[in-house]
């Protein structure tokens, strides 16, 4: 047990089994990013998947949104300690986009408009665990929350769910992304409180 702070009793107790340790519930949808909100024109928007051998597949926004999509409701967890339950989205499963691309990659580096990157194991993006999401709460995803489209990987801390996503780069080696290079955890599991390197 940690060092006791005299007089501190705390508020949240026993709590909600859907809240990972150290998280508190919010009804808001806080906005967190490293710089200004990117505003990407739909006509210029493109999303691409590239393999370690340089093979590339890309979609315009219209092409993306005409692919089979899923509606899903998930809990999301930010490393700054808020969690939001039952958020409703629509998007294309990452699996669909990777399709039958020929790859031996174990890792993915997600790239965003504006230069943000984040790394993930490829396995974490497959089997219905991740989407390229373009609707939130039944409406087009707003720029503050990463619109036109963002990666959504709800089982990891939200910095892995790159806003304004423009592509996934498949790789055989794990390369740290933007926050990972400045001390954040390589994987980011909220249930194991993997906030910073070494957690």
């Amino acid at each position, binding site marked *: *047990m*940690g*060092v*006791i*702070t*005299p*007089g*501190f*009793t*705390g*508020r*949240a*107790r026993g709590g909600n089994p859907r809240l990972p340790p*150290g998280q*508190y519930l*919010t009804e*808001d*949808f*806080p*906005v*967190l*990013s*490293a*710089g*200004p*909100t*990117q505003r990407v024109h739909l006509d210029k928007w493109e999303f691409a998947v590239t393999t370690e051998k340089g093979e590339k597949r890309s979609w315009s926004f219209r092409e993306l949104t005409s692919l089979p999509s899923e509606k899903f409701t998930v809990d999301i967890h930010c490393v*700054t*300690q*808020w969690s939001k339950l039952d958020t409703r989205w629509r998007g294309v499963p990452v699996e669909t986009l990777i399709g039958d691309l020929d790859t031996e990659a174990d890792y993915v580096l997600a790239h965003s408009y*504006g*230069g943000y990157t984040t790394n993930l194991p490829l396995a974490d993006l497959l089997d219905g665990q991740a989407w390229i999401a373009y609707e939130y709460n039944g409406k087009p995803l707003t720029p*503050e929350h990463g619109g036109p489209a963002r990666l959504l990987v709800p089982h990891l801390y939200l910095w892995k769910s790159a806003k304004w996503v423009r592509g996934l780069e498949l790789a055989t080696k794990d390369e740290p992304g*933007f*926050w990972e*290079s*400045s*001390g954040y955890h390589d994987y980011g599991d909220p249930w194991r409180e993997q*906030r*910073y*390197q*070494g*957690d």
Partner: protein
Amino acid sequence: MARTAVSGRLAWRVANLAEIRQETATARTLVFDVPGWPGHLAGQHVDVRLTAADGYTAQRSYSLAAPSDGDRLELTVQRVAGGEVSEHLTGPYAVGDPVEIRGPIGGWFVWRPTDPAPVLLVAGGSGVVPLMAMIRARRAAGSRALFRLVYSVRTPADLYYAAELRKPYAGLDVTYVYTRELPDGAPGIPRRISVATLNTASWPTDFGPTTFVCGPTAFVETVADALLALGHSPHSIRTERFGPSRD
């Protein structure tokens, strides 16, 4: 982006409160002794963990308010009504009481004294905290980088570090924006920060300034959008958002 060297697990360290400075009716600066503190850069933050007698813990992030100074570090905490951690830190928490702290955290929203580029700091409310660390780091290092601070608060009584900012300091200009109430005798009317404010107070884009914006979410969104409208490149604008948003 420069990489921050981080080795091993970020340790929780015991911090003892050495001094309290009341900044406003609802905010105070807490000065801690943290034996073994590894040092930090202006703009970084720490995580603070409180533990109750029954083992329950709560942790929150707070920006470092002053540059690195041996085993000492300073935070400024604003009381949030109903807030679990901030109400304790601005209330019963007393000199000699321990908390646990780990950090420093963050390698992007930082200013290094070796950087000669002009700097624009834009603060909303308690968002001034990490920006003040940059102002103090500039002074401590004798840097000649040109600094401007635009500081938005509701009323003059809400200013943090008021006496220190009032002292003239070569190379630092401060513009205050009051949203509810002006200082006695000041001309004009209360207003919110706008493109016009930033057009006057920011650096011309061809000076290659770096801008740091910190405050509640809506404030940061407004300011970042205004700076983009004025032609600043997105890469020159670094933001940190403190508060929740309604949306």
